[in-house]
């Protein structure tokens, strides 16, 4: 046993050393790479949500989206015909389904992406693709990261994608339209007492929307306060007992849409919460709440109508 365990430990030590060596090698590669991109002169530069200065060619004809909200934005600003690749989750609008699939957000096919010869790949940080981003940049493909934490961030994403795709006016028009709808909702619920809401992302285990989630801002605008608004992170796993102790007056179940029947029942711990006892459990289309894109305003309107039906009665 002693002998065996020693060799076991040694294997671990060796693999750890190998891992460290790989990391060192890799970081060395990225370091040299960064200097090479900074030297290349660019037609225009936009700073993305990861704080990276990204340069784009003057005219972008081929773009790939790695998240459903980004696909929706590209179509909504009238540049859908320039989308040459999308993820398997990108199911809206219907025309998007005709675009080539490059895998899903977490496992995109690098080969497929490169073979589609895009000039720009749009990603959301939810996809966590740091290594992948470096590989694309080495192919001279611009990678633009969006990471909105509130509705204004969504508007900024739309305007930035408008700039990248030279659809500035359409993007500004879309944002203006969305902003008016959002303002109308906020105006309608302004005088109402905010409802204390628990947002259930999944029941078992219990996940919720934290401080960094853009739906937390959406709930505030819809005349509610998320009871988990101050929890660090975007999608924290949450304590059952803290959820019950927060005594939510309403529960939002993002379900339906691409989610199908998933997440359509309240978690067991909250079955006796004031919200569940009063029947204030609202199922709202997950595609309108989980995708920080143009349809988020549909989600905002649906939540505001659910929380304050009397404000929209006339």
């Amino acid at each position, binding site marked *: *046993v*002693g002998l*065996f*365990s020693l060799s*076991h*430990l040694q294997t671990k030590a060796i693999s750890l050393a190998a891992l460290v060596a790989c990391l060192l090698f890799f970081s060395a590669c990225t370091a040299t790479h960064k200097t090479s991109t900074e030297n290349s002169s660019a037609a225009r530069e936009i700073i993305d949500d990861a704080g990276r200065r990204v340069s784009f060619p003057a005219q972008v004809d081929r773009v790939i989206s790695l998240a459903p909200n980004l696909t929706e934005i590209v179509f909504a600003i009238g540049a859908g015909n320039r989308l040459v690749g999308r993820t398997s*989750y990108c199911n809206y609008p219907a025309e998007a389904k005709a675009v080539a699939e490059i895998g*899903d*957000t*977490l496992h995109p096919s690098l080969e497929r992406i490169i073979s589609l010869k895009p000039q720009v790949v749009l990603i959301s940080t939810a996809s966590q693709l740091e290594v992948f981003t470096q590989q694309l940049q080495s192919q001279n493909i611009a990678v633009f990261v969006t990471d909105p934490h509130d509705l204004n961030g969504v508007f900024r994403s739309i305007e930035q994608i408008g700039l990248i795709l030279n659809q500035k006016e359409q993007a500004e028009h879309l944002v203006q339209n969305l902003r008016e709808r959002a303002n109308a909702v906020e105006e309608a619920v302004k005088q109402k007492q905010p409802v204390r809401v628990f947002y259930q*992302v*999944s*029941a*078992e*285990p*219990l*996940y919720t929307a934290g401080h960094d989630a853009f739906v937390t801002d959406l709930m505030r605008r819809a005349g509610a306060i998320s009871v*988990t608004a101050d*929890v*660090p*992170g975007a*999608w*924290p*796993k*949450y*304590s*059952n*007992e*803290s959820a*019950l*102790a927060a*005594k939510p007056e309403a529960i939002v179940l993002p379900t339906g849409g*691409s*989610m*199908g029947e*998933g*997440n359509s029942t309240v978690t*067991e*711990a909250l079955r*006796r919460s004031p919200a569940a006892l009063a029947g204030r459990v609202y199922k709202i289309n*997950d595609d309108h709440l*989980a995708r920080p894109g143009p349809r988020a305003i549909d989600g905002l309107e649906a939540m505001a109508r659910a929380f304050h039906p009397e404000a929209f009665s006339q």
Partner: protein
Amino acid sequence: MIGTAANVVSATARQNRVTLRKTVVSCALLAGALLLSIVLMSLTGSEQLPASASLCALASFGTTPCGLTRDQFDILFQIRLPRILLAAAVGGSLATAGAAYQALLRNPLAEPYLLGISNGAAVGTMIALVFFGANEWTRPLLAFTGALLATLAVYRLARGRAGATPERLILAGVIVTTFLSSVIVFVTTLMDATRIRSFTFWLLGDLSGTSKTLLPVAITIAVAGALVLTLHARSLNLLMLGERDAFDLGVEVRRVRVVVFLVASLLVGSSVAASGSVGYVGLVVPHLARLSLGSDNRISIPAAALGGALFVIVADTVARTIIAPRELPVGAITALIGAPLFIYLLKRT
């Protein structure tokens, strides 16, 4: 660590009586510690509950609220206590199964998680979730099937012409574990994206989704399994001398092997179905039991059962309070405590 032939065979009636007394005393002490931990950990959580009122309510077995508000009462009896009881069932099951595997396979490194048996149960549970999602009963059933198949696969792979050497067994475990890990990755592609995240959490071992249907099943299996294996402890003691010697001493080797494999798979299956793969419990707890109480399975198996329950209750309390109101998976805590402790134990022996 493993007793020599002489001292087991020459076990006289007096020694048996001494063993019995030692078993009763150590189990009584551990049971007391377990009860104490259930009560103390019930007072600990992300929400602060009034201690004396909670104690009073616990003492009344939930019949009187003792001044707790309805929410506080629900937190204590609907959320916290069921989770603690599940932690006890899972910990007891895994530690008992680990002790049994170690005795039967004559290998101190045998452990459900490291041999891939937990992964087999995880595949079974995931298949139940994907194809029979609504029916919770299918989960422990398919988890048991998966654990049993994985056990048989490891056992067959490990038995070479020279018998099952410890190295062969661990290698077989590595092969089965990695193979089943890829099966798990494959099954996750059949699930919708929103569920994958919660599954990765569950795979690490998570007790937060305590199911009211599976809790009584898990407790019953844990208690019954520990009893059955304790009753086979004498045969296991003799089996540790080698299968031929055990056979010569009157042990029905084949029957004992079948019973132990079935019961251990059932224990792993029910705990994985309820909580995912909580690692290292089956390794650390039986080792501690043997180090402190000796290698006689008649003591170490029941002691491991009680100690495993205690260990996972404490680990889960850390998991649910350390970054409250957020939570960690309990498997991360058991591995964090278990792996270094295991290294320390190996260095000492």
